[in-house]
């Protein structure tokens, strides 16, 4: 390889490579020389175990179990959250009525709800899906409601002056104008769902990543 190309590669990826190498090196040194305990295995051992788990299909099986739970809870949470958010953003009385609920509940971390969920719904699927719904719904509601309030008043006015009815304005103006906000809410909710599912499965589950 010509030296110029090599320099380019180095300047682009060299830092990352050094970073990873040093990470595994430090991990290895710490595990073998500093701690020396079975509770802190060196990287090579961990990778060998991972390969066996993938070969036997165990890892994929648990990955699939977690993914199913996330999808079920995420879809249910979004389907519930979007209409609630739309209603809160569109009608002031609904907002006033529901805001105490959303503002109160969204600050309770879903991880703190794990024990409660298990007591209410048992160790089975229901409690996991409940937790994912819980972690999804408030972010989706908040973003959807914010999206509705961010619609430019002139869009609504233009539609009125063109003869659209209230229902038409909702479905043909307010809803499409809010879609980007709804999607942002769902993306954030998806990230939270992963954190929650692993924690929930750690506490109570026979299968799954946790």
């Amino acid at each position: 390889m010509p030296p110029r190309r090599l320099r380019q590669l180095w300047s682009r990826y060299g830092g990352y490579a050094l970073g990873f190498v040093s990470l595994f090196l430090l991990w290895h040194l710490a595990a073998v020389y500093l701690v020396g305990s079975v509770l802190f295995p060196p990287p090579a051992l961990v990778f060998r175990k991972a390969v066996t788990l993938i070969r036997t299909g165990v890892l994929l099986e648990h990955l699939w179990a977690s993914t199913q739970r996330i999808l079920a809870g995420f879809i249910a949470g979004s389907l519930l959250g979007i209409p609630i958010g739309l209603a809160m953003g569109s009608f002031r009385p609904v907002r006033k009525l529901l805001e105490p609920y959303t503002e109160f509940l969204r600050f309770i971390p879903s991880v703190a709800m794990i024990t409660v969920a298990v007591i209410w719904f048992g160790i089975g699927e229901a409690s996991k899906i409940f937790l994912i719904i819980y972690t999804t719904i408030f972010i989706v509601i908040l973003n959807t409601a914010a999206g509705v309030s961010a619609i430019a008043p002139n869009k609504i006015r233009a539609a009125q002056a063109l003869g659209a009815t209230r229902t038409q304005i909702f479905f043909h103006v307010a809803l499409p104008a809010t879609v980007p906000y709804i999607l942002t809410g769902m993306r954030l909710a998806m990230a939270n769902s992963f954190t929650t599912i692993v924690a929930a499965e750690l506490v109570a589950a026979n299968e799954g990543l946790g």
Partner: protein
Amino acid sequence: MTPLVSFQDVQKIYRSLQGADYSAVEHFSVEIEAGEFFCLLGPSGCGKTTVLKLLAGFELPTAGHILMHGRPVTGASRDRGVVFQGDDSLFGWLTAVENVEFGLRMRGVARSERRERALRYLQLVGLGGQEQKYPAELSGGMKQRIQIARALFNEPAMLLMDEPFAALDAQTRALMQAELASIWKTTRTTVLFITHDIDEAVTLGTRIGVMRAGPRARVKGVIDVALDGARSRTDDAFLRYYKQVYEMIRDEVAKSIARTD
């Protein structure tokens, strides 16, 4: 003959939570005949846009009457098409031609019946070939053209334009004014055109209503513009009208500046 639109002693007070109510217009009276191009001219902050919002039906007057076809205005209707100053009234998720068709689509007119005519309206405003673009892909002047086509295609009895060219650069503005003048000559739709630009008012209007400075603004005087054909900014007649309007508005601008300082 009853005028198409009449404002009778209209007042609009904006209530504020702090108790400092603001009376934007007061004793505002004016009549607009069918087929007119009526320019409402005034210094900034004089309540021109308030007048437009009231006639559009977006807001209701605190006192007085606004009649159209002799009947009071109670809300927005497709009788009165609106062209807004900014581009935030366009539907960003629809293409240019879909924006133009919006009114007819809401009325349940089939796509096959509306598409071809919508394209003709886009052509009329000089947007032929741009029909599949989204508003975000078009320039400021082109977006205003979509708004004009969208309002005209709905065939309103009247067109309300709220400083539609104020945000455009000088060259584009002059071009758009000339095009609007020629569109108006073919359609002869009644227009209420809000502006703070004397030049624009004399270029476009068949009558010019000059407003007093706000608050409690009303019409100071109305000038008939007896110019026809292509109006040239260098014509003597044009300059005479310019001077007449300028002299009427000069004191109001000074008052308006003194109040905001």
